[in-house]
C-alpha cells in the first residue's frame, strides 16, 4: 500500500534534518510545503543554514553546498527506504576535498546495510571502497576492465 504523501514527506523531512547535520557538520535544514492545503499540487521549498551562516533558500548557496544538500536528501531517502544495492555515478563531483571526506565516511556507514557501486574521480571516495575497478581504453574506443589494489599510503 502506497504511503500517503504527507506521511512520507514527514518521514523524509525528519531524516533529511539528520543527514544534513552529519554532512555539513552542524547547522540545520527544513523542508517547507508551499501549499499545505493542496497536497496534490504543493511544491517543496528547501531552506538550509550551513554552520554559522543564516537560514536561506538553497538558491543562494554555492555549487558545492547545493550538491551536498542534494546528497543529504538522497541519503535520507535511502535511509527511509533502503534498496538492496545502489549505483551512484559521480555524485561527489562538485564537492571540495573536505566535503568529499565527510561524504565518503557517511557512505561507509550506509554501506553496512546496502551494497554501493560508486563511479568516482575523487581520492576521498576511492579510499573507502572495499573493491576498486579501473576502466581504461588502451585500444581506442574499447573499454577494458582492471581490478585495482588500493595502496594504503
Amino acid at each position, binding site marked *: 500500500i502506497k504511503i500517503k504523501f504527507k506521511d512520507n514527506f514527514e518521514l523524509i523531512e525528519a531524516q533529511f534534518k539528520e543527514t544534513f547535520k552529519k554532512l555539513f557538520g552542524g547547522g540545520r535544514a527544513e523542508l517547507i510545503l508551499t501549499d499545505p492545503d493542496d497536497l496534490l499540487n504543493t511544491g517543496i521549498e528547501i531552506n538550509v543554514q550551513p554552520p554559522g551562516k543564516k537560514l536561506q533558500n538553497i538558491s543562494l548557496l554555492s555549487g558545492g553546498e547545493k550538491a551536498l544538500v542534494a546528497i543529504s536528501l538522497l541519503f535520507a531517502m535511502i535511509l527511509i527506504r533502503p*534498496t538492496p544495492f545502489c*549505483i551512484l555515478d559521480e555524485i561527489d563531483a562538485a564537492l571540495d576535498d573536505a566535503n568529499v571526506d565527510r561524504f565518503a565516511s557517511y557512505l561507509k556507514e550506509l554501506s553496512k546495510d546496502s551494497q554501493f557501486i560508486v563511479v568516482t574521480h575523487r581520492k576521498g571516495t576511492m579510499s573507502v571502497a572495499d*573493491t576498486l575497478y579501473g576502466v581504461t581504453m588502451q585500444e581506442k574506443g574499447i573499454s577494458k576492465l582492471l581490478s585495482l589494489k588500493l595502496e594504503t599510503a
Partner: protein
Amino acid sequence: MFLKRLEIIGFKSFADKVILNFEKGITAIVGPNGSGKSNISDAVRLVLGEQSIKSLRGNKLEDVIFVGTEKRKPLSFAEVTLTLDNSDHMLPLDFTEVVITRKIFRSGESEFYINKTQCRLKDVYELFMDTGIGRDGYSIIGQGKIDEILVSRPEDRRQIFEEAS
C-alpha cells in the same frame, strides 16, 4: 539480496566481454573521461528492463550496441547478464541465485532470460516490483541526477519525493 556479477558484451564501448565481480560493501569504479564507467551503470539499467533509450543517452535501441571504431567493425547484438545473490529470497523465486540476461539486436528486439529460461520484459518487472529496484526507484543515481534535484523548481520537487514512497 545483493549483486554478485555483471557481464557485458557488445553494449556501447564493451566490444570485448567484461566481467565485474561485486562484494558487499562499496565497489568504486574509476578511470578517465569516456573510458566506459557510466556505460556500466547504463548496462545495469538495460538488463533491469529499461525501455527509455533516452535514459541510456541514445535515441534508438541500436545506438547502444557497439558501433565500431576505426579498427573494428560494429557488432550486431549486445548482451548483459546480471547475477544476484537471493539467499534472503527478497526476489519471489525459489533460487538462492538469480541470473537475469537481456540480449538486444539492431532490429530493436530484446530477449529476456531468468535463470536461462526465456521470459518477457513483464516478468523482469514483476520480479523486482517490491524491491525499490528498477523503474521509478532511485537505486541507480545517474551522472546529472544531483543537478536535476537542484534545478527542479519547488513544484517539480514533489516528484522526487514520490519516487521515494
